[in-house]
């Protein structure tokens, strides 16, 4: 099975993250950039399917030059190769344009199965799998916490508010996964060394046949008008329990009319 995993490089969610003051895009320059955590679960799931059923795993990333670091990190887990869509004109692309670019790249790669994380930690927008599926005219099984592959039939448990749904589709399909689906492997030393030699193909907008006017800040379908840092919450009262902490807590809740 020809599997493509979408990998996004994001600013580390454990550190301070900002939007740029000049063009209101995510500040990637001053951030510590890492693989979007949920994508590691997507890579793991792809590798497990390859191990069980054979095939090839390709990483697909759209991002600036520095996303190469994340691509090598992804490859060190075990995928065979990577495709990096990189073009200055992509800076500031909205989700709608991003899906157009990724769908064009996926069209060229001819994937049987596209796996991605359910959301990225920077935007948390959760729209990409369905946007891509809509463009490619293929099935989307999203929010999977379990995935089974039987020939060309995919069955997933999709997490819902009330429990889960069992959903099924045939390949080609897009599947998005939550972090409950597996436990991603750590790259081995051998894996890290091998990753340096794995092929990484770069594609420009021209290679994909997407016009630069359709992407980037100018082609965006939405715009950030302004952004401000939320004032940090000022800590309130802190008491140390000396035997009546529970009662004191309820007294506070009563003052605030919660009790």
């Amino acid at each position, binding site marked *: 099975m020809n599997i493509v995993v979408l990998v996004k490089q994001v600013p580390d*969610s*454990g550190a301070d*993250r*900002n*939007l740029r003051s000049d063009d209101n895009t995510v500040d990637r320059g001053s951030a510590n950039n890492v693989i979007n*955590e*949920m994508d590691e679960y997507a890579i793991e799931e792809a590798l497990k399917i390859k191990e069980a059923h054979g095939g090839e795993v390709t990483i697909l990333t759209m991002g600036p030059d520095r996303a190469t670091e994340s691509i090598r990190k992804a490859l060190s887990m075990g995928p065979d190769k990577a495709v990096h869509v990189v073009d200055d004109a992509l800076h500031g692309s*909205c*989700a*709608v344009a991003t*899906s157009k670019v990724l769908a064009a790249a996926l069209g060229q790669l001819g994937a049987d199965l596209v796996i991605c994380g359910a959301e990225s*930690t920077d*935007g*948390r*927008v*959760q*729209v990409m799998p*369905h946007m891509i*599926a*809509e*463009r490619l005219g293929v099935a*989307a*099984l999203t*929010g999977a916490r379990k995935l089974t592959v039987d020939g060309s039939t995919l*069955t997933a448990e999709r*997490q*819902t*508010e*009330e*429990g*889960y*749904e*069992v*959903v*099924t*589709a045939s390949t080609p399909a897009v599947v998005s996964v939550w972090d409950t689906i597996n436990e991603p492997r750590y790259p081995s030393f051998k894996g890290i060394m091998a990753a340096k030699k794995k092929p990484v193909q770069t594609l420009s907008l021209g290679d994909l046949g997407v016009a630069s006017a359709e992407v980037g800040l100018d082609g*965006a*379908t*939405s715009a*950030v*008008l*302004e*952004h*401000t840092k*939320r004032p*940090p*919450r000022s*800590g*309130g009262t802190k*008491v140390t*329990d000396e035997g009546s*902490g*529970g*009662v004191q*807590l309820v007294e*506070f*809740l009563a003052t*605030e009319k*919660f*009790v």
Partner: protein
Amino acid sequence: MSEVLVVVEATREFGVKKVTLEMLTLARELGTPSAVVLGGAGAGEALSAKLGEYGAEKIYAAEGEEIDGYLVAPKATVVAELVTRVQPAAVLLASSQEGKEIAARLAVKLDNGILTDVVALDADGTATQVAFAGSTIVKSKVTKGLPLVTVRPNSLTPTPAAASPAVEQLTVSVTDADKLARVVERVAEQKGSRPELTEASIVVSGGRGVGNADNFKLVEELADLLGGAVGASRAAVDSGFYPHQFQVGQTGKTVSPQLYVALGISGAIQHRAGMQTSKTIVAVNKDGEAPIFELADYGVVGDLFKIVPQAAEEIRKRK
């Protein structure tokens, strides 16, 4: 005034979710709300009274197996057709998994911008979003097409405004391409009398400090006494103390209740990402240096196994 489409979120037992009432309240500020019901047979009629109570002037319903038996795509097709027909001033959906997914497909079908996790929307289409774990407030706008927006639960207080809507049944003309992902089974888990996590006014969460799955009874007890939902930190979920669907944080649910009670939660960024826009935050932790106390309006440093039962007893006494 032009129509504003509100795509209804409801339970499978035809209960209108609170976020829907919030969206109807918001829609009244922008135009004339029309509710769009997408679900099983009879959903439109079953939901109409409640939707009317909150100002829906009209109800569009697309019902049956063609809609309900497949994931997302048929719903998006129906809403896209409706948008093209009625040319609404805006389309509002809930910022839930499915709400965002329908919106995603609508954005591609209509070649239209999309804004998610919106907490306020002005009549001129300017939206307010909270980004980066609640640390940044963003004003943004759809610049291509109509405002297509997903609204975060608990962003505003729903207020009733009686209307008596008629239900218009939509002709469902979904394509084969819309029926590629089939729902073969729906399984309800952990469904109790507690409010849903993202919609609850009060959330009581437990973390690693709760110690084990059995001890989560303490968390549940306090939640029930306060009429709240139960949440859990990632550390607690990863340790198997509580099921994943109750996880609050960066890789879980984002909640914004009136009151958030954190028990045995240190307050790592992973967790803060999901709860720091809560109105009032209360924390109990044995480590006085835990970062959760930087957020807490009221914090108690001490042993939660002493403090929580005492608090529960005190609430019972006061009832």
